[in-house]
């Protein structure tokens, strides 16, 4: 049985590991390579690393840091941040990264998705959509760390990414970032219904129950989180954690019909 993936998402800012709230106020939480080592030991399903400076500063991905991540990481790795060209994507895959995430550049020029997919294969191309609601409740895709509104609908953008050969969609809710009060399940459901690509959802997870609710809603899905895996307690003390294999199995049995059948 294919399992839902539980995916820590690490944000890199000034070479340090940070966590934001609604994409703002980055709080330093430690050394990113050290975090990778801890997730290796905990056997995390996958890892997402996003450099939140690269696009905003208009600079290239930090290939030296990516190489360090790739060398240290014993689980599949998805890197995003500042990727604008086919050459950059090829170079990142060449460093030993499984998946390259595109955001701003792909929203501006969606053909970048197909051009990269042709070179590295669809399975390695991830499109990250940062979604924010307007005061009137309309959900739109934002880029540059939530500073630029593209005015595009996440559903239309996800469909377009699928058509152009993306291998995965990551839906990241800006409104829920760092809130730890649950995913935007309605949005996740809409994207799930609109495409047949693997999908991961980021933004809002604060408990295993939140992850369970997402699995209940979307089935075999990637449940990604930042705060949930780096903070502990109401005062948000920094402590990296990840569910044990037993906790993961129990979660699947409780929320995925196929998992219950498999163990029945």
């Amino acid at each position, binding site marked *: 049985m294919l399992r839902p993936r539980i995916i820590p998402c690490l944000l890199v800012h000034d070479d340090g590991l940070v966590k934001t709230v609604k994409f703002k106020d980055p709080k330093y939480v430690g050394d990113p390579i050290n975090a990778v080592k801890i997730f290796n030991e905990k056997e995390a399903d996958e890892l997402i690393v996003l450099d939140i400076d690269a696009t905003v500063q208009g600079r290239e991905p930090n290939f030296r840091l990516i190489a360090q991540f*790739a060398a240290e990481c014993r689980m599949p790795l998805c890197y995003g941040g500042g990727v604008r060209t086919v050459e950059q994507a090829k170079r990142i895959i060449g460093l030993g990264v499984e998946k390259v995430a595109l955001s701003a550049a792909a929203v501006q020029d969606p053909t970048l998705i197909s051009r990269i997919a042709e070179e590295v294969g669809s399975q390695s191309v991830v499109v990250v959509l940062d979604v924010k609601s307007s005061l009137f409740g309309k959900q739109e895709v934002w880029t540059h760390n939530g500073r630029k509104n593209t005015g595009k609908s996440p559903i239309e953008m996800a469909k377009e990414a699928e058509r152009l050969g993306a291998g995965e969609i990551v839906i990241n809710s800006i409104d829920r970032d760092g809130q730890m009060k649950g995913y935007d399940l309605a949005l996740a459901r809409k994207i799930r219904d609109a495409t047949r690509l693997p999908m991961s959802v980021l933004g809002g997870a604060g408990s295993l129950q939140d992850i369970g609710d997402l699995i209940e809603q979307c089935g075999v899905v990637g449940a990604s989180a930042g705060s949930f895996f780096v903070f502990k307690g109401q005062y948000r003390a920094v402590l990296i954690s990840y569910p044990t294999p037993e906790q993961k199995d129990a979660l699947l049995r409780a929320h995925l019909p196929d998992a219950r059948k498999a163990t029945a």
Partner: protein
Amino acid sequence: MIKIIDYGLGNILAFQNMYKRLNVAVGLARTVDDLQGATKLILPGVGAFDHAMEQLDRSGMRQRLDELVLGEKLPVIGICVGMQMLADRSDEGQLAGLGWIPGEVRGFKSLGQPDLLLPHMGWNDVSPQPGHRLFNELQSDARFYFLHSFYFECKEASHVAAVSHYGKEFSCAVSAGNIHGVQFHPEKSHHFGAQLLKNFAEL
């Protein structure tokens, strides 16, 4: 020494790191000369089938690999697209495969299941053939990380070393004598993958 065939595709670094932790010496082969002294071979691979075959041809190692694997019977393992390259051909491309294990590579899309999410991405259960040495200590509860849209269809059922289920039951590992292949990524599959790579080293 185990030589990893470095023809510009696949996560060479991840294999090196895994074997370093296992205390097994590995080297890279970028040219025919580098293949000297190889006792076992790893053929990694990612991306499109034709691109992988072209890259391998371009490396100039193709003929020597045929001699080592088919003539001298050196144990070899193909990983992901590296496994698909062992087949005669692939629905994904036009070029012929290595033809080391009789079979063809098919796309999950051709199963005609509109609800099947593609690519097949994530951790899936793997059921090995009982007693298969590549799956020593992985006979129960083994799971590995998959990332692919095409799968290997063996001509001979006896070449199926392990199966997994996605849309249908498919061969996720193949074995014919000294030639092996796995569709999943052992280099990214934590202790399950480490055990499989250790088993290959000990074949």
